[in-house]
């Protein structure tokens, strides 16, 4: 399909819509079954603000739960500062480990 489009010298923009009817959130569902406290996230951003590795954990987790997509975690030091600051006491460090494990299961590097 892409090859056909490129022949015409243009591409069709993908819609930016999140289509909740079609999103596959199984990955997120499997992980949140292990770490139930994740569901209580308030999106306050404390985790991202405190991260010495510069991981935007809030937005990473939000993308994972909303779209089932996972962006890179490779600068995470597993230091656990995000867990120390979370106002809802979400086990973020354990959550990150679960995400890494799942990704390995799915055969993708994190």
């Amino acid at each position, binding site marked *: 399909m892409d090859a056909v489009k490129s022949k015409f010298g243009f591409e069709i923009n993908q819609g*930016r*819509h*999140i*289509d*909740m*009817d079609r999103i596959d959130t199984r990955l997120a569902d499997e992980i949140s079954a292990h770490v*139930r*406290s994740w*569901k*209580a*996230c308030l*999106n306050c951003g404390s985790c991202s603000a405190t991260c010495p590795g510069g991981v935007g954990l809030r937005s990473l987790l*939000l*993308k994972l739960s*909303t*779209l089932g997509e996972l962006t890179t975690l490779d600068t995470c030091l597993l230091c656990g500062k995000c867990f120390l600051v979370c106002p*809802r006491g979400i086990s973020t460090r354990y959550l990150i480990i679960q995400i890494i494990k799942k990704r390995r299961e799915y055969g993708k590097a994190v």
Partner: protein
Amino acid sequence: MTNQPDIRRVDVRRVAVIGAGPAGMAAAGSLASLGIAVDWYEKDPLTGGKLHDYYQLFPDRVRASEVLPELESKSGKSLITKYLGRTISEIERHPGGIVLKNGSGSCGEADAVILATGFDFFDARLKEEFGYGIYKHVITSVDLERMLPVGKDALRRFGKDPATVGFVHCVGSRDEQVGISYCSRLCCITGIKQAIEVSEMFPAAKVYNFYIDMRAFGQGFEELYRKAQEEHGIRFIRGRVSEASEDREFRIRVKAEDTLMARPLKVTVDWLVLLVGMTPSCTEVTLDHAEKQQEFIKPENPLTSNAVRGMPGVFAAGCCTGPMNIPESVASGRAAALQAYDYLTRDR
């Protein structure tokens, strides 16, 4: 005369309480306990007000029907005279007291008056973009409250359990488009409670709550919010629904922005529940020929008093002064009763 004990002669004085919701019930009961005679006016044929419209009350999910008898006056019942199905449209101050009127006719007198006329639910049809009154499966939180006690069948569609249910927060609250600038405060927790009730009824259903801010202010409210997320998996999406439309299967297509993701979003739901706000009651009593108010009554000093400005002897209680939950309404009714008592017993 001089040998008489110092008893203030309050027994001949009468207080009119207008409205028999939680605030009016608390006010009438408190006055009777204080030994004051009460004329109690209610436009509906029974006392209890909007408690009759509710199924379970937040945050502890106590049945509304269990709360009603608790609010009934235990003492001094003989001092209360009920006038049910009687509307008071105007009150007028005269040198001898206060005259209660319905239209042009006088229908009673009192030495002091407690207004506990309550509120109306926002008319969701005014927010046409949500399709209330147009699409069958767009309902309000008030409709849902009546459907919940009926059980699963009330929410099944064409014999099937609903797969997705959406809740829209702030319908008729914080919305200059419908001339309402204030927050109704109680819709957030109602949305949380009803989302839990729906998800308990249909555990497989996905439940989405669309909100601007979550304002879980009361005792136990934040805990219920967390429970909704963690135990029931209810998804709270920050973003106001822009519009709803119906598809060929009579499901409701919802458009919103997920403002945390900063991306537009669409989702199809089997039911869309509009969490309607509270508006000043249209049956509100007009004070001294004033223009019929479409505002909540502002007490003289909202921090410390229930007295209505410029109307000595008139006190306002409960939701006619602004959105309140049941414990607040009850406290407000009791406070107004005590102030009316003080007014009657102090030297004037």
